[in-house]
């Protein structure tokens, strides 16, 4: 079953749902029971005792005094907030997380006084505190369910809505808007406001990918802090004062850094909307599927938003070990090709016996079976999944074939964009399909074709005419078997053309440049004849070797993990949503000496 999730909106940003890298250990769950009691503090939340670490990761991941908000999360008590984000510097401006609290009464001996029931006597503070920025102290009592807290939340919501345009019916954020959610959860049903609302700029074109509606903005400054403190691009700011405060971008300079679209996710309301996604789909119609971005070797975790077999957006999915809560704009928008009208949706090739998979695979199997050893070469793609590469490796071993992959590189940035633009170079190396350095075998393939020693070539997901195997060379081959998603000069010359799938159309796993093995799930069905490559590769390998292979991705992964030493100990189920890291022996472009 494909794990899909309803659009959960910002609910996934609770202080506890985040996992940080703490002092090098991977994905240490916050508040794990391994915390030594000496470093723990006991507080009560709404009367319920909870033990929390004295120090917990702050937004940078460094240990800092635990906040009330983190303590409430540990007690599984929801505290609403707008401006707070676990991965941003704390601003404390929305005042939605105000709670009441008290501290233990100290006796003359400076020790906490206990009542007749043995419980600490609490002196309730006359003033509330913002849970996001107030550190807890031993014995502190936090109250989130008092009439006072209820009134404060109602008050903040009434203020936020006073000048809000209330244009939910035409707002893209509707359905995942925190102003909507909290108004339902904590607000009042009617407004007292009878004055004229403040009017501010609407449909402001602040950059190539983002439109700003200042009337919807609640001035939480999340976007400002993100782009200033995380991206290092001080591009956004507030002008004017008081209720006329207006979010804007640096005059005369578009807000166009490669992380700008994260501000759309961060925006708790519909002030910042994505030009790409706006007006495309109501978010409550979206099916959200967990995936991994395949635009580079970082492997940012994503949610694929789709409806009726159409991908409508990618949004970053939180993973402290990989991408935090973020992804780059390039990767986010790199999905349109999936629905290109010229996609290969039919079995093809000049030697297709019949337009059906069994016949096509039988023809390929027979061509390969008859190929003499060392006359076959395989160009595997570092864009394929681990499972597909594993099966290709099996095929290469059976045929005695030489193999390689095609490197793809570009300028890295200092954050998420890797120089390695293949999502699975690590996998291609791990399974022994890529030469060292990657691509160095391809000239030998050219030589082999020229001399006639190489007669059969399998190409997966690459246009080899662009890397030294020109059309004239490919024409010399006895058999050219190609699997791809989009047409190119190589697919045009194929004797056997097998339509494959985009990563969002299949299940499997990828290994990122740091050796993190991460799962992807099928968000949409493949179009036409297209089939996930692992399925038909499995059929092919079974036909050629006579060995049985599991027919589920779980089974295949687990067999692969037992078979490949680098993956020993891994299990599909244990990978979880965040993946697991395996030791990397091979060099990757990221750690290669330049």
């Amino acid at each position, binding site marked *: 079953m494909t794990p899909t999730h309803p659009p959960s909106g910002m609910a996934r940003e609770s202080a506890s749902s985040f996992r940080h890298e703490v002092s090098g250990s991977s994905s240490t769950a916050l508040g794990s029971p391994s915390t030594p009691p000496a470093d723990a503090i006991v507080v009560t939340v709404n009367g319920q005792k909870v033990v929390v670490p004295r120090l917990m990761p702050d937004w940078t991941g460094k240990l800092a005094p635990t906040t009330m908000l983190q303590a409430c999360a540990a007690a599984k008590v929801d505290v609403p907030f707008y401006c707070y984000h676990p991965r941003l510097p704390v601003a404390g401006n929305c005042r939605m997380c105000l709670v009441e609290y008290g501290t233990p009464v100290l006796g003359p001996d400076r020790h906490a006084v206990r009542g007749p029931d043995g419980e600490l006597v609490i002196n309730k503070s006359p003033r509330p505190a913002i849970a996001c920025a107030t550190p807890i102290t031993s014995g502190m009592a936090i109250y989130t369910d008092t009439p006072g807290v209820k009134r404060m939340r109602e008050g903040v919501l009434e*203020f936020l809505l*006073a000048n809000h345009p209330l244009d939910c019916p035409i707002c893209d954020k509707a359905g995942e808007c925190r102003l909507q959610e909290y108004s339902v959860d904590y607000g009042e049903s009617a407004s*007292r406001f009878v004055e004229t609302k403040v009017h501010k700029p609407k449909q402001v074109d602040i950059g190539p990918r983002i439109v700003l509606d200042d009337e919807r903005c609640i001035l939480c400054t999340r976007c400002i802090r993100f782009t200033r403190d995380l991206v290092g691009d001080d591009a956004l700011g507030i002008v004017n*004062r008081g209720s006329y405060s207006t979010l804007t971008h640096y005059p005369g300079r578009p807000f166009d850094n490669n992380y700008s679209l994260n501000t759309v996710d961060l925006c708790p309301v519909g002030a910042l909307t994505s030009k790409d996604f706006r007006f495309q789909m109501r978010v409550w119609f979206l099916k959200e599927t967990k995936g991994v971005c395949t635009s580079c070797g970082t492997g940012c975790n994503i949610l694929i938003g789709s409806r009726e077999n159409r991908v409508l957006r990618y949004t970053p999915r939180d993973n402290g070990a990989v991408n935090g809560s973020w992804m780059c704009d390039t990767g986010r928008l790199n999905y349109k090709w999936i629905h290109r009208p010229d996609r290969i949706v039919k079995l093809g090739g000049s030697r297709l016996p019949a337009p059906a998979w069994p016949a096509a695979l039988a023809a390929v199997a027979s061509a390969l079976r008859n190929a003499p050893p060392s006359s076959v070469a395989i160009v595997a793609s570092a864009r394929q999944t681990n499972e597909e590469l594993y099966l290709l490796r099996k095929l290469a071993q059976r045929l005695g074939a030489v193999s390689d992959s095609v490197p793809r590189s570009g300028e890295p940035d200092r954050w998420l964009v890797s120089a390695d633009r293949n999502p699975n170079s690590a996998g291609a190396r791990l399974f022994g399909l890529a030469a060292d350095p990657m691509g160095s075998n391809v000239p030998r393939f050219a030589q082999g074709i020229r001399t006639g020693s190489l007669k059969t070539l399998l190409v997966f997901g690459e246009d080899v005419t662009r890397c030294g195997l020109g059309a004239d060379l490919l024409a010399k081959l006895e058999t050219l078997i190609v699997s791809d998603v989009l047409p190119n000069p190589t697919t045009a010359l194929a004797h056997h053309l097998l339509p494959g799938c985009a990563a969002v159309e299949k299940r499997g796993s990828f290994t990122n440049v740091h050796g993190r093995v991460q799962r992807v799930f099928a968000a949409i069905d493949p179009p036409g004849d297209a089939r996930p490559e692992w399925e038909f590769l499995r059929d092919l390998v079974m036909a050629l070797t006579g060995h049985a292979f599991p027919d589920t991705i779980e089974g295949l992964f687990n067999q692969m993990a037992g078979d490949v030493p680098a993956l020993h100990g891994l299990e599909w189920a244990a990978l979880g949503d965040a993946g697991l890291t395996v030791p990397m022996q091979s060099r990757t472009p990221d750690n290669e000496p330049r």
Partner: protein
Amino acid sequence: MPQEHRLILKHIDQSGYTPDFDCYARHGGYEVLKRVLALTTRNGPDGKPKSPQEQIREEVVVSGLRGRGGAGFSCGMKWALVDRKSGKPIYLICNADESEPGTFKDRQIIYKDPHQLLEGMVISGYANDVHLAYIYIRGEFVEGAQILERAIAEAKSHGYLGTNILGSNYDLEIHVHRGAGAYICGEETGLIESIEGKRAYPRIKPPYFPAVLGLYMCPTIVNNVETLCAVKHVVEMGGTAYASLGTPNNTGTRIVCLSGHVVRPGYYEIEVGEATLRDLIYDPAFGGGLRPGRRLKAVIPGGVSSKVFKAGEKVRIRLKQPDGREGEREIDVLDLPYDFTTLIAAGSMSGSGAIIVLDDSADIVAVLANISEFFAHESCGQCTPCREGSLWMAKALRRMTRGEGRAEDAAYLMHIADNIPGGRTICAFGEACSWPVQSMVSKFKDEFVAKGKADQARQSKEAA
């Protein structure tokens, strides 16, 4: 009869007294600083050696000096809270952003006796191991900034400022930083942000207490102009002698700014708590009473952000009785001694020392509309309740002054105002903008309701 007791204002307004160095020196200027720099380490009563800095700080603690900017926080305590172990520099900032409507005391010092402020700052800087100090002056005081710059140049050329002050090896630089005309820059953390070159958004506390994480994330002392001048007098007289002025817990002298419907508006330096509001309004030595034929309507006792007192209002508070014992009694607000503690106990505050007197010619709705307009204009807009609430209240009052009031507007205004203060906001601006509304609407509710009803009646008549 209470009289003025001029310490800080001693020479100000004397004929021939000018703001230049020579005049200040002729009047005994910088003598206290000379004494301070000559102090040596001495053994305290407990036998432990005390550095000159510790001796000065102790005098300030003993003096009981409370901040004259508005909150009335103990100056000695503020200095004691400074993190001296961080290894970071300690900064001193003089808050000269005097912006609370009704307040005009600091400008007298700045314009007429700038060297007194500088001497107070050098003493305070020396006492706290400060080597870089700022005077944050409000943008509208253009001439004041020039006067201060001139005074700083003079003090430097005479060796009272800069490096190796009077050969003591103590260095202090003072920079004048001009604001750009925002009330919120008077809030100490907003002021710090402003010096750092940012929008004057007040910081959240915790964690950004200036004593620990202030200017450039270093320990910082922010004191009002008058407070820093008072430090000079504390050191000059000795803490105990200073504390004998005024009343216990409300020591020394302070400058009161009297404005509004009195015959003699102006600034008066009094011993704290030695005069009542009635004295200050009616005594010929101070306000000299109301204009002929007018009756008192209300008193705003500590700048427009303080809660109003209604004429004839009685409050129950604990007070020292004539026989010397303390007891709770009912007292007319005009008989409240003008000090920090009593006015807070009576539900308001002496704030920045600005008393605004309103006689029966004042339309309370118009008064409140004016005040709320100010706060709506000055709210920095950082946190929700103040940003949205201040303008909402101002719009409602604007509507009422336009003649479009409603009978329910009194309750409507109270509802808005009740959702802003009490720690719901980042800084005290939330209280500042809501207290006048809460107090005026509740104490003059009949006027607000009557106005609303009259407007509605007229409107329905016009519609008919």
